[in-house]
């Protein structure tokens, strides 16, 4: 037991040093600032591995330093001097020792820790969320309800949630490093992962597999809310759009918007871009590319190709007055 404690103490030094370097950084997507049991297990696994890794590097560097120091001391030697000793070192340090170390790592990582990062079975959780990757945004559905949203996933805090990920086009990867490992969305297949958050808060996630031009702008938020707040949010999201008879609504239907976007409770039912039924309740636009405020909304409508080049949304040609009407309408969709 004492040996173990001493060991821990030695390892704490490099680990602490790196932690010092890392603090002061924004923790938005920091895999070493975990907020779930799965991410914590992975993070502590990393700290241990890193400690042992520094130790391994130190041995090799020490050997080279010895070689360098000896070089200045001894001029001559036999071409095979010390061969038996060298053989023992190579077998001990190069075969036996690494096998023991790696076997330990294998057992800890792939038999114990792997269990905590597995997806819960279908039906084992109270809540399931479907996440569908699109070039380049995330569609979010809550099975059993009519709620559909985009790029912002709300979950109740301290509650295991099964997230089922799939794709509408190419391979993406769903990744919220502070909560869990990554999982790819594979065409023709549904993969699953658990989301669980220890604390109320906003956790940033991002597509982790190259998926084309705007792979860089395919981020999302996970909001872990107190259960009551979450339930209220979900009820709000289920409702159809509130204001359906306005100049803006008419414009939305008549301009090309409705070809690609759906607003539940209206005739707009496109499925190329995100569902906009409650777009005003979201904090960002275009998969976290820009904040969801009036100026950026207008810019997005008129200059989407400048904000996020190559994305599916064209620059919409409307008069200034029309844009303002449309923006007012969209901002009313809470």
């Amino acid at each position, binding site marked *: 037991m004492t040996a173990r404690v001493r060991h821990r103490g030695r390892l704490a030094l490099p680990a602490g040093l790196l932690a010092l370097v*890392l603090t002061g*950084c*924004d923790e*938005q*997507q*920091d*895999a070493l600032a975990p907020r779930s049991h799965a991410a914590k297990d992975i993070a502590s*696994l*990393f700290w241990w*591995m890193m400690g042992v*890794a520094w130790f391994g*590097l130190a041995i*090799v560097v020490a*050997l*080279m330093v010895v*070689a*360098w120091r*000896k*070089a200045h001391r*001894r*001029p*001559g*030697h036999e*071409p*095979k001097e010390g061969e038996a000793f*060298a*053989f023992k*070192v*190579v*077998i001990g*340090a*190069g*075969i036996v020792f*690494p096998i023991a170390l*790696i076997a330990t*790592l*294998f057992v*800890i*990582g*792939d*038999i114990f*820790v792997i269990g*905590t*990062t*597995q997806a819960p079975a279908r039906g084992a959780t109270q809540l399931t969320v479907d996440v569908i990757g699109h*070039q380049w945004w995330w569609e979010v559905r809550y099975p059993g309800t009519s709620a559909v949203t985009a790029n912002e996933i709300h979950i109740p805090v301290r509650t295991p949630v099964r997230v089922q990920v799939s794709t509408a*086009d190419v*391979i993406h990867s769903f990744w919220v490093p502070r909560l869990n*490992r990554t*999982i*790819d969305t*594979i065409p*023709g297949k549904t993969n699953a992962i658990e989301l669980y958050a220890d604390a109320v808060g906003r956790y940033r996630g*991002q597509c*982790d*597999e*190259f998926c*084309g031009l705007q*792979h*860089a702008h395919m981020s999302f938020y996970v909001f872990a809310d107190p259960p009551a707040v979450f339930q209220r949010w979900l009820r709000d999201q289920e409702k159809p759009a509130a204001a359906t008879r306005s100049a803006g609504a008419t414009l939305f239907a008549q301009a090309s918007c409705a070809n690609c976007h759906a607003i539940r409770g209206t005739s707009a039912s496109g499925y190329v871009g995100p569902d906009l039924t409650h777009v005003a309740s979201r904090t960002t636009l275009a998969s976290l590319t820009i904040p969801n405020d009036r100026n950026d909304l207008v810019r997005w409508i008129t200059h989407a190709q400048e904000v996020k080049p190559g994305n599916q949304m064209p620059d919409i040609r409307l008069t200034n007055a029309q844009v303002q009407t449309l923006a007012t309408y969209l901002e009313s969709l809470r």
Partner: protein
Amino acid sequence: MAIATPPTPAAAERMELLAKMWEGRPGVLGWFTTTDHKKIGLLYFWTTLVFFAAGGAEALIMRTQLAQPNEKLVSPNTYDELFSMHGITMIFFFIIPMTTGAFGNYLLPLMLGARDMAFPRMNALSYWIFLASGIFLYTSLALGVAPNAGWFDYVPLASRQYDPGRNIDFYCLGIIFNSISSTLTAAQFIVTIFKSRAPGMSFNRMPLFCFAMLAAAGGLLFALPLLSADTIFLFLDRNIGTHFYDIARGGSAYLWQHLFWMFGHPEVYILIVPAFGIATEIIPAFTQRRVAAFPLVAIAELLVVFIGFGVWAHHMYATGIPTITAIFFGSATAMVVIPSTIQVFAWCMTMVLGTARFGTPLLFIAGFIFMFVIGGLSGIMFVAIPFDQQVTDTYFIIAHFHYIIFGAAVFPIFGGMYYWFPKVTGKLYYELPGQISFWILFVGTNLLFFPMHIVGLLGMPRRQYTYPSGMGWSGYNLVETIGGYITAAGIILLIGNLVVSYFRGAPAGPDPWHGATLEWTTSSPPPPYNYAVIPKVSSAYPNWDEADRAEDRAKLAEGTFVLMDGHEQVAVTPVDGTFDEVVEMPHDSPWPPLLALSLLLVFFMLVLHKYGAAGIFAVGTVLTLFGWHSKEPQEA
């Protein structure tokens, strides 16, 4: 005392006769028709350096784009083309052709005591096809339709639906074209190693560099067909309407990934194992001690590639493969560590037990060991599947494999450039600028790649053309970019040093390092026939066997085993290396470049979807082959 200086006037006469017989056509035309492995090695060397510059420029543009958040130096599509071309170039057009094509070609026959490769014309063909495939691929960049779905080129992103341009067609055909060249190289390396060794060089006396080349060639030969199948399927899917990867019609997106990584992971070891080979030559020369635990190191070099064929799915942990599958590949990944640790400790023990002289080549090897251990240790972390799944596709991975590919594969290439420079040019390089270039490169690469570990853990995914501020990534990225420019400066100094040394260096003599292997027994640069007498070999360190070398000189004076009746080389039995027969070798041939040219036309027609024209040029290729075989070496 090397055999470079003729012991008697009669010996001098014999050497002159050999030189006349083996000298190729003079002048520029001679470079086109040459079958001399040394000239082909040099052609490879200069060509791959050009591609290295291109791949490096691509990397620097990317690093400049990423120096700070929301930078707008290049468009998203340009960035995608840059990282795709950077990966393809560095792997297929720099490291593989540099280690096998340049180093392997130049050194393998010399170390084996042979006068040329087993198939000299095929050797020339592999170079000309390599050059043609490079021209083919870079035409796409010039036309603005370079591959843009990454070197890994995952479907369905690379399918016609999501990438309708010619970009991916250039990728498929360029890769297939290049694979032909590497396959030719691999096949003839294997035959050369098995059949063209000097009599007496049984397998246990073969230099470790040759074991490494055997491992790399064997790996290439088995790995490349998987890649070719993969890219042929994709080309057919895109252009003919097959459904290998078409999910809607029963195809699978996994198929691409499995085939790609069944090639791709052995490929990683194929990239570094020649570097191990270079290290195992420089270390004995600069410590004046035999490599510790020689048999273990030889076996480890072969094993690393062999086990490397069983780990591919660790690139696919995040794809939702069954956990039990992942664990199987996790255990294979654990196993592949052992051959590497064996070698690291063998190198270190050799340095400890010998008298290490830290000249520039050994400095690069020490730097290589340091960076290989860092890259290896971060690689061991991927044995823990959940950790791999957490950092996959982040900058942590980029840090890991650049420590391996730049630190462990390219540093020994740099070290090898210095080490064999006197042999190839006959001149000594300048030592102080050499050591300075090492330290600049060492600091530069660590600044460039170490912070990538940290940004990866901070959640920065790879392959994104820009990133937002406020993520804690900006400072590290700036340091990486600065490191990138320092690295570039180090490379320029290194090349500059070698160029100046070429013109103004002191004469090197045949054996400036008291090296261990046969190439140091002949003059610098080696004569066209390499060795005036087929050398006697009784250990893996023949240049240190004084008695054998004296025997060679005596034989030259007597005129035994000089083989000067024609363009002749010895063939031995594959394992024991006992004398088998004398074979007549082919000489200067115009057909290899012509064949490569006709293939280039076939590939250009294919990428333009002009299949009829491609067929016509393919007939031309076949006719070239007839011309090739119209005159066999025996009839010469």
